């Protein structure tokens, strides 16, 4: 079991209020991802759950037991750190076994568990080496191995892949996803990487300045963001926000349209926005256009496949009306006004 509930959790560092008050329910077996801009309190929130920081107020319940006063080791959680935090003077085997040894488990059971973890993560060939002799990806696997042998109620990851190169990141992402499917243990995962968040999560928590902006499934967040912040944060490239003359047509101060929901035409069409191509990025599978639209300003357009336009060309844009997001003066999404 691994149900984690936060009730009105707050955190001060000295006089600085980093997390005002957070309520959150993580169901057993969920893969929850915390995303948000740098400094919004993702790591802090994770460390509060782990018990590495004291809360300033509120309750943290793990399986309906308040753990606020418990030390980290008593909470039954495992954490994977960004820097891996392996013990450099111990072999991979001893690194993984350390937690079990501290728990006073007998040698035979420790060996069995370590060998099992080594098999799951494919550590066999370097189990007797020290961390200094491993590559980044291998170290990350060892760190995960150390987390899984303790059979925790939940795993906590703090940007575990950010020190890896792009290709390895994709591979490890899949492995973590596999691991979750296999173990079915609750996982809480902090990242600032859009793709990691969208692909791994059952549910995403979007944080901003210590507040939960929205909590929901990845596609929920993509399709119906609660406010302008979430709309702008989820999705890559970012959503275009349009104010002024063209927004007035929809009787709201701001409308938003994702780059992939802008139709593009090189021939004159009625009611379309006229724009001049600035930069065209041809990725093969997609083409990203950064255009300067009349009366609007900078817009990003995403076209599937190849589109043969280049700098200075005039294009005509038509937004997909059904995928248009309307925001009021406070930046909240207007849903009823259709």
């Amino acid at each position, binding site marked *: 079991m691994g149900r984690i509930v936060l009730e009105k959790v707050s955190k001060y560092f000295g006089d600085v209020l980093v997390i005002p008050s957070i309520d959150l329910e993580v169901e057993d077996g969920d893969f929850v991802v915390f995303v948000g801009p740098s400094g919004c309190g993702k790591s802090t929130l994770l460390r509060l759950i782990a018990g590495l920081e004291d809360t300033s107020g509120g309750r943290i319940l793990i399986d309906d037991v308040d753990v606020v006063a418990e030390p*980290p080791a008593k909470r039954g959680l495992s954490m994977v*750190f960004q820097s891996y*935090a392996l*013990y450099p003077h111990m072999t991979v085997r001893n690194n993984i076994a*350390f937690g079990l040894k501290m728990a006073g488990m007998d040698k035979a059971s420790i060996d069995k568990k370590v060998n099992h973890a080594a098999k799951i993560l494919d550590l066999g060939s370097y189990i007797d080496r020290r961390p200094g002799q491993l590559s980044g990806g291998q170290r990350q696997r060892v760190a995960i191995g150390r987390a899984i042998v303790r059979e925790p109620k939940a795993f906590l990851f703090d940007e575990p892949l950010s020190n890896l190169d792009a290709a390895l990141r994709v591979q490890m992402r899949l492995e973590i996803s596999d691991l979750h499917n296999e173990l079915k243990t609750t996982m809480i995962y902090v990242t600032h990487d859009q793709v990691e968040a969208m692909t791994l999560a059952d549910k995403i928590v979007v944080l901003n300045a210590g507040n939960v902006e929205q909590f929901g499934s990845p596609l929920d967040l993509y399709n119906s963001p609660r406010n302008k912040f979430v709309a702008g944060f989820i999705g890559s490239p970012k959503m275009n926000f349009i104010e002024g003359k063209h927004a007035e047509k929809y009787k709201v101060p701001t409308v938003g349209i994702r780059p992939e929901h802008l139709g593009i035409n090189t021939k004159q069409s009625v009611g379309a926005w006229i724009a001049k191509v600035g930069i065209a990025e041809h990725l093969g599978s997609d083409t990203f256009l950064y255009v300067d639209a009349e009366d609007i300003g900078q817009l990003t357009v995403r076209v599937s496949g190849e589109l043969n336009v280049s700098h200075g060309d005039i294009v005509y844009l038509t937004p997909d009306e059904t995928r248009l997001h309307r925001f009021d003066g406070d930046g909240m999404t207007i849903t009823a006004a259709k």
Partner: protein
Amino acid sequence: MATKQTKTLATFMVAPSVIMLFLWMIVPLCMTIYFSTLRYNLLDPGNEAFVGLENYIYFLTDPDFFTALGNTLILVGSVLFITVVGGVLLAILLDQPFFGQGIARLMVIAPFFVMPTVSALIWKNLLMNPVSGFFAYLAKLVGVEPIDWLGDHALLSIIILVAWQWLPFATLILLTAVGSLDGERKEAAEMDGAGPISLFYYIILPHLARAITVVILIETIFLLSIFAEIFVTTGGGPGLDTTNIAFLVYSQALLQFDIGGASAGGIVAVILANIVAIFLVRMVGKNLDA
């Protein structure tokens, strides 16, 4: 030093200083070796003559030599033990955040800046004096007979004094090492359920191994040749109780005016220091390339 070119360049660049250092060392060393083979006594000038290894035989078969050698090893060993153990504990203590941390650090480091002669005088006259010393005052306060530290426990007193001088050095080096321990590693151990003692034994101590090695090597070099402290406090006595090799060489040369014998003693001391150094490097040096 990756390429052939940088290697050649480096050789030329360091050559002048290596040559300087070499001359600097080699000239006194050769002269000492030369003197050690002479009968050369200041009370009998003009009668210098080559005597081969006689001075060495004399020095090495002198029972005083073995006493001095024993004293030297006890002194070095005890001071190393006290400073390393005390240094590790103090370093960990000073690494904790507490009010007045800056001042406390400064106070701990301070003894290192006191000259050996001055600190020896302070210990001898203000602290360990059996009549007017601070320790005697404390003893009288609780009603026990004051101890004549430098009279009855001379070697122990010297050990305490020297350890007091070198504890700051060990603490300073170890403090930087403790400070460089990655916070996430400590947190990982905490999540793994390591209590304070396990944390110390399994995480902090291995992390400090390299710094401890450095402390031991550097201190040994200086401790083998402790002189001022002994000269000021006990003068090698009572009897030979606090005479180490350095002091023995001095007493031969200047108290018995035997330059030849003292030179031989000096060379023996150099060889001994090298043996100890090789031994130590073998023993703890493997920590250095981890």
